[in-house]
């Protein structure tokens, strides 16, 4: 027991019958995808305490428990040994003491201990199963603890017996909340925590603080995810792939080198995309998703494939405008290299070509050039001998597709409950995100991407993504 003078952080003990989704709720709340969850009853064998810390301080705790296995028998023991209502809690303490080493009541002992130590119980029921008399015994035992608590209706299947459960639960708990552990978003988790505030008056302030800390941390995480995606754009837009050529290489050898170049360029882009995804997953505690990468549905569509271009990126009218601007931006770089002697002709021609390509053209990765091209001196000043090189990206479609795929993936990861053990579900993300964002947002992002392209074509690659781009990406990720 804690010292009388010490202030223990709020502790919520998640209890209920076996296989009601207790561990799923704890996994969703604690963002811990490693918590064992299985259809086999009794998967959780020991009480496990999860502490939410802000810095060095524990703000509150959640305790996952094995679940009731013999509640009717335990209640019968308690009723036999209790003489009056006044000694019920003491009888429970005695029950835990007597059965501390008893395998018959090992689960009941393990789940009751943290409650008797001062925790409040969160009683979880699976509302897809009907009410059973066993549940009444469980709730009665919890009532004997004398601690305040709340009930949470989880659902593991389509069936819904919530209407049957509610009037029963309200007889035992003054707070009853629905919480779908498998579909819980960050907002749902916060809502549940806000409900936790009501369990005890003295815990209202610390739980209020916990909510504020979580909101702040989520904001910071959003920023980091946006920075990771921004970093991907910086890297991808500036990428240059180079293949050396023998001095005496003939046209056939050069064609082969160009083909290898295209493959290597695409592979490098995919590798960058994968790295950014891993970072976003890591930030959100979804490391396990790496194992189910093959099932990434639409996101697994080849980055450079036609399906990807149709599903992600901008719509055609949106692209036409961007194409004009991107063409102009590329042309401006040519003007700059010509020292302004081209009188802006590069920008004008670039805009025309860019617009036409955006409307009519098929996607191409990047410009391919050799050691004689103007880009060679700027982008590969150290390169000697003959070579062919590709990059940076110039087609407005590809950066937008890349960005859109990254945003869709990040959004799916951010919305994914840590109680899920299946593949990343992108059924709700059949289409991209950027086309649905406000025009002002697209304009801002496009300007930032064009600035990156311009910088990349003059060999000035930023070490980190521009602040404005990160801010816009943060907006997209935070959008409902």
């Amino acid at each position, binding site marked *: 027991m804690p010292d009388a003078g010490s202030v223990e952080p709020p502790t919520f003990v998640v209890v209920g019958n*076996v*296989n009601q989704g207790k561990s799923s709720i704890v996994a969703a709340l*604690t*963002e*811990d995808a*490693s*918590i*064992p969850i*299985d*259809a*086999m*009853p*009794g998967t*959780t*064998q*020991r009480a*496990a*305490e*999860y*502490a*939410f*810390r*802000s*810095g*060095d301080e524990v*703000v509150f705790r959640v305790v*996952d428990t094995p679940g*009731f*296995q013999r509640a*009717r*028998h335990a209640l019968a023991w308690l009723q036999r040994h209790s003489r009056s209502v006044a000694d019920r809690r003491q009888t429970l303490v005695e029950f835990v003491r007597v059965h501390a080493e008893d395998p*018959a009541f090992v689960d009941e002992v393990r789940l009751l201990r943290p409650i008797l130590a001062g925790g409040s119980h969160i009683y979880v029921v*699976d509302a897809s*199963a*009907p*009410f*059973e*008399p*066993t549940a009444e015994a469980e709730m009665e035992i919890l009532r004997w603890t004398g601690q305040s608590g709340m009930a949470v209706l989880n659902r593991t*299947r389509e*069936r819904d*017996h919530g209407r049957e459960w509610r009037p029963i639960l309200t007889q035992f708990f003054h707070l009853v909340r629905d919480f779908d552990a498998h579909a819980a978003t960050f907002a749902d988790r916060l809502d549940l925590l806000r409900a936790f505030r009501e369990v005890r008056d003295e815990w209202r302030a610390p739980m209020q603080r916990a909510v504020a*800390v*979580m909101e*702040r*941390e989520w904001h910071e995480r959003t920023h*980091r995810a946006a*920075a990771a995606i921004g*970093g991907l754009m910086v890297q991808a837009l500036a990428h240059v792939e*180079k*293949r*050396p050529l023998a001095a005496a290489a003939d046209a056939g050898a050069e064609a082969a080198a160009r083909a290898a170049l295209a493959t290597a360029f695409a592979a490098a882009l995919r590798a960058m995309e994968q790295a950014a995804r*891993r970072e976003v997953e*890591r930030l959100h505690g979804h490391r396990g998703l790496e194992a189910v990468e093959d099932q990434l549905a639409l996101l697994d569509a080849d980055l450079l494939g036609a399906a990807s271009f149709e599903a992600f990126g901008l719509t055609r009218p949106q692209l036409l405008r961007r194409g004009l601007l991107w063409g102009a931006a590329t042309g401006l770089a040519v003007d700059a290299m010509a020292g302004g002697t081209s009188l802006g002709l590069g920008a004008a021609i670039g805009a025309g070509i860019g617009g036409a390509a955006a409307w009519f053209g098929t996607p191409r990765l990047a410009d391919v050039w050799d050691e004689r091209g103007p880009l060679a001196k700027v982008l*590969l*000043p*150290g390169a*000697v001998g003959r070579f062919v090189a590709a990059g940076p990206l110039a087609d407005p479609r590809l950066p937008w597709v890349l960005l859109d795929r990254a945003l869709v993936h990040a959004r799916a990861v951010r919305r994914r409950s840590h109680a899920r053990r299946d593949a990343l579900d992108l059924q709700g993300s059949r289409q991209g995100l950027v086309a649905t964002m406000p025009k002002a947002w697209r304009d801002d992002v496009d300007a930032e991407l064009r600035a990156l392209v311009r910088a990349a074509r003059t060999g000035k690659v930023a*070490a*980190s993504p521009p602040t404005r781009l990160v801010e816009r990406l943060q907006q997209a990720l935070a959008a409902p």
Partner: protein
Amino acid sequence: MDLARLVDLEVQLQRDDRALAEGRANELEARDAAIGGALLAQGGRLDAATAMGRQQLAAAWLDALGETGPRLGHRATHALRVAAWLLGLAAGLVGIGAARATLAYDGQQPVNVFGFLAVLIGLQMVLLAAMVVALLRGGDSVAARLVAWAARRWPGGHAALGAGQIAGRLQLHAAAERWHLFALNQRAAIAFNLGALATCLYLVVFTDLAFGWSTTLELGAEQMHRLCGSIAAPWRQAWPDAVPSLELVRDSQWTRMPGRFTTGAALPTAVQQSGRWWSFLVAALLVWGLLPRLLAWAFAAHRARRTLANLPLDDRRCAALFARLLPPAAAWSGPAPEAIGLPAAARLGNDRARPVPAVAHVATWLLCWGRLQPRQDAVRDLVARSTGTDPVGVGAVGGSALADDAAAVARLAAAQVQRVLLVLSAGTQPTKDVLELLATLRQRLGPRAHLGVALLADANGQLAPADAAELRPWQARLDRLGDANLGVERLEVPGHA
């Protein structure tokens, strides 16, 4: 952060980049999370929000890497110090040489004051001004340009891209590099001036020197006097003897053709007057040669330290490092999964699914569990439709009173029942409570009695067989009891999928 640390940081970040490229991200994450945890445990305040916090964190990280970390920083700074001394030595020698050249006196012609001022003062001032302009203009890192230059001589295409990466990193620290190079340069210049000054004093003290001035410009003695006066303005009050008088200037004007002083004075006279010129030249060298370099060096050293101290360390690679190193400001912590749950091998996901047999078409006693008690008739009817055989009898178990369970079991035992089907609502779990009832039945009915378990779902008030997925946990649980006459059975009702 000092230069040695910065070099080590860059070397280690480069190593980590290679590890990431080789797919060893998990290794780096584990390493840095452990270091971050250890730093936290030591009570250190970990903060990546400010430049100073990031620098402290990077330094602590390098310390924690210990033996596995890079050791290049100290070697590099040591090499830089040696290079600075060598450069200083060389500059000092050049200073000596320059002073000897400008103060060379062969007894035929006096030392031309103009030559001394032009080489040791004028040229230095021009160089310093050019360097300050270059410094203020900024521009690319010299080291980055050196790397690019080296890459041009490197065979193979990829080397160029690797060099590009290194050059990019160096470019991040271009400002710090500029100030360091500037400071280094000023140190060399100080050595140059000291060399020149020492030589100057030596020649004045130990040799005879005659000073004069000679120019092809249209410059009269009065103008030359004003020029000397301007140069001597800083020390005019403090050291008036080091300011040439108009008379001295007039007497010292030398014409090369035919090689004499314009006043007609002889060289020995000039030698006697040399003391009045050398003090001016030494003062000029001190004030216009050495002093600006000392000031520039002090300022550059200060700026170099400040630039290093203010390095933002906020680029992509550093951000990734700090993300690995620092736990989030708010985070959950809990036990390892293996400490709390069933071993992975014992979980249902690893259980081989097999078909569940249908309920046998033989005379059967029904036991209705829990909430199915009041719906015994409906259960009986459903089982009859499923098996084509009316159950022999129906009992109630799993209610609020344990005594009812005991009574039902006693009734079956008394009737020597040989087949019992325990029917539960779908969603009811195979808890110890239920398994204990089955164990009691086995004990009372004997090993040959057939015990089955079936689940019924309540769909909008209608009872229906539960789906196979709900039977699976039961099947797996009962299988582990090792009872050949105990198993899950599937109810099949015509019209139900």
